[in-house]
């Protein structure tokens, strides 16, 4: 499977809606990422034009924020916590286990664009450490069997949307 082709028209219509809006850049980039899962490089020049900014400047903003990605991500984005609390509770071995299970290193996306593996400095869920997120859902008090079942769950969901 490949990441979905960028629907150029869709992209331009999103950009148009923000044209000439003051302070519109970040919300616009968020809207694009929301739609496509990432900010495709082809968007940069049109975004710059609409915001009356230099394309190099827009690129700088995108690459400055960890929240924006310039590469397509998998259907499920895993964020495994490496914060102190999670570390103490064995977060490291959870991460290692997930890496092995998915065959991915940090920052990588599986070739079928099903999974992207990321880490976070703290998910703000220390009370349920060790924790991770899959897309917008939190999973706490992780143990190897729990991880396996979560991953299994997401694998099964495949194609549902």
């Amino acid at each position, binding site marked *: 499977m490949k990441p979905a082709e960028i629907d150029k028209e869709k992209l331009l219509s999103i950009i148009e809606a923000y044209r000439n809006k003051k302070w519109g850049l970040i919300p616009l980039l968020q809207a694009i990422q929301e739609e496509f899962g990432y900010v495709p490089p082809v968007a940069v020049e049109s975004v710059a034009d609409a915001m009356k900014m*230099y*394309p*190099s*400047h827009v*690129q*700088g903003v995108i*690459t*400055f924020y960890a929240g924006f990605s310039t590469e397509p991500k998998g259907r499920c984005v895993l964020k495994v916590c490496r914060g102190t609390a999670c570390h103490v509770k064995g977060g490291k071995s959870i991460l290692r286990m997930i890496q092995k299970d998915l065959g991915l290193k940090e920052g990588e996306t599986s070739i079928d664009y099903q999974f992207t593996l990321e880490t976070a400095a703290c998910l703000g869920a220390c009370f349920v450490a060790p924790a991770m997120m899959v897309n917008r859902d939190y999973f706490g008090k992780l143990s190897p069997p729990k991880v396996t079942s979560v991953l299994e769950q997401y694998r099964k969901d495949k194609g549902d949307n």
Partner: protein
Amino acid sequence: MKTITLTINGEHVSCTEGSSLLEAAQGHGIKIPTLCHHHSLKPVGACRMCLVEDEKTGRIIASCVTPAAQKMSVLTESPRVLKHRRNIVRLMMAEHPESCIICSKGNRCSLRQYAAELGIGETGLYPIPNYRNIEQANPFIQRDLTKCILCGKCIRADHELVVTGAIDYNMRGFDSRPSTLFDRPLEKSTCTFCGTCLSICPTGALSPVSIFVGTPEKEKLSFCGFCGVGCRLSLGISDNQVVEVNPAHIKKSVNDAALCVRGHFGHDFLNVKQRMTKPMIKKDGSLSSVSWAEAIELVADRLTQIKDKHGPDSIAFLGSSKCANEENYLFQKLARIGFKTNNIDNGGYISGRLMLDLIDTRTDPGRRFNFFAGTLSGLEMAEVIFIAGADPSHSIPVAGYYLKRSVKNGTPVIVADPRKTEMAGLASVWLRLKPGSDLELINALSALIYRKNVYADSFIKRFTRGFEKYSESLSSYDLDRAARITGISIQEMERAADLLVGKKIAFMVGDGIIKNRYGMETGEAFLNLALMTGSIGYGGAGFHFPAKENNQVGAWDMGTVPDKLPGRQPLNDSLSRTSWEKLWGGEIPHEVGLDLCGMIEAAEQAKLKALYIMGENPLRSLPDRQRVLNALEKIDFIVVQDILNNETSKLADAVLPGAAFCEKKGTFTNMEGRLRSVSAVVEPPGDAKSDFEIIGLVAEKCGHTSLKCSVESIREELSKRIPMYEKGRSNFHPVWIKEAIDSDPAEEDDRERLISFSQVVTADEEEADKEYLFTAIIGSKRCHLGSGTRTGYSPRIKAFNFSDAIEISEQDSKDFGISDGNKVRLVSRNGAIEREVCVKKNIGRGMVFVPAAFNGNDAGLLIRLTKLFDSTSEGWNCCPVKLEKI
């Protein structure tokens, strides 16, 4: 402004409110090291080199971003400051690569200087250099971002000074670097290779690509030898050669820290082997080297013989818009007094002197106020800017930066151009008119403003005449017809008129008008518009004409023209004439002489027997090369005095090697009217001599010994006789601008000097050409100046291989089945050229853009040589063509 007093290192200092601590210190000669600060960039406080200690609070603060406050007391070299500063440099050095030792920035690298000053050899830290690829595929700028300290100066220079936006910060943390869009190499980005970032970079991260390695022996101030902006340069010199060029970074100078690609990199033409180094004369059909004495003798003898045999008007003198004022002055004096002819002109004919003349004679005969806008910095005060037929981003790039900065600051800008030039893309209103239809556009805008009833009423009443008659024709002016001719809807014109109404306008009027077939009429229409809106040269308003050559204005001021004496005094004014005759001790002929075009025509009719050319290459710069060649071949004796072997010098009977701007002393007048004095910072190559000296030698040999004199004595003569060249003004605006600013126009009421409106003249409505379907627009690209003689020799400009492709629209490329890279033949009624095409978005249907100056300036083949501003002229900037795929 309030004054603040404070103590720095125990010394009492004062500064104006709002100054930073750094500025306060610098103002009193106290040095504080800086890396990310530059006087013309907004401070960001990125490097922390400029730390100082606040004695009262004990805080360590960055002086470049801390405003000086009353009664503050700071130390710039306290032990704590030094400790921190040392640590900062150590950390930077730890991130620096080993190649630092052999870096070509050498001793000019600020980081290395500070490290040495602070006694940092070994950092004692674990080195963690951040390796990057070295980028050096282009012949101008080498980027080794491993050496980047992230001071951000390059980025700020690119955004704030040259307003290009080619680079910005990319990524964050350890990966952070200045980078182009998608991290492409510079040549694939929007970079114009102005090199401004390279000269401002404090480290070796950005350095010039050059055959010269190491640090130049010395650096000398000079001025750019290319266009009329006249940027201040710092020339790096080694072994009597200019090996490096940088902007001089002088506050309030026209360019300060900026330059353009020509000025920065094109001066390497100075050292090419095609420089003329020996006098030569034609023997048996080919040129061979001779001594100066032999060459001068031949020139003097032949010119004298021809004058005696065929009369004074069988000789013509072509002076130079690239030579110094004193040289041009002496040259026209030789023509007028020595040879009794007014057959004298200069290359400025090609680049707009007729328009300067028009505005000057029409508005300022009594020198009351002037319509020239003066300094480019005035653009920052302008209420509205109107750019017509000009592409300053290419023709005069540093002036283009001023315009872009104005746009950024919110000044409304109107651009009238068939192409979407860079300025058109940024403008508030872009009037995309049909090529050559400017006359109707300006008339229509005037009519709209008149009908809105908002014009400079009191100005008109006091200082002009003929408004009633003019306004009558405006009220009956046919706007629909104008819309048809220009291709611009009345609504669009209304939008532009709304922006102009009630404002004083700064005009930038370029080649599209100057070389237009209705050049004179359009000039008059602009003048009417300026009169109606009271846009005199004051407060940023008035006319700017992009001067393509560094001394275009000066050559004109010096009287190197057929109808004017020095100081722009009309030849047919007997008062002016007698005053110059008295000074020169000889009679000046009365009849207006031949202009450049007239010289070619006279040569064709075998009326011109001798031509003395100083620093011009008419065979390349004039349209219709074949015709010019045929004409020149009919001339019995041609002298070419120049710095480079070129097309015209091949035809010469005598070649006299002259000196380039940095090899001689003299003054030049830039497009703002600023006088700039240069001195010889290197010797002319080989046996070459300064043009001033050569003219003197020729004059002397012809028996006019009074013309053999010193540059200083001429300067004296100029300053006494021409008010705008008065002494002590070497770096100020000449009097004419000063007067305009100082005089209160409302004080004067002299009926004699009223400026008259001219009548509305309309262009003919034409049928579309059935055979020649396209209109070719000929224009410049920033890599070349004028017809490209000098820039064409620049090794680096040649190495870049700038594209000469003919630009066509996407629509036409589809309709005619021509795509990017295809070769085409472009045929006009006059001639044909062959080139590749390139499909562009910025050009409309039915037009093609032909970059001039490439391939020996073959674009000129398309154009018929006609006298500019003549009623029969077809203009030089565009012509009907057809496109054949080959």
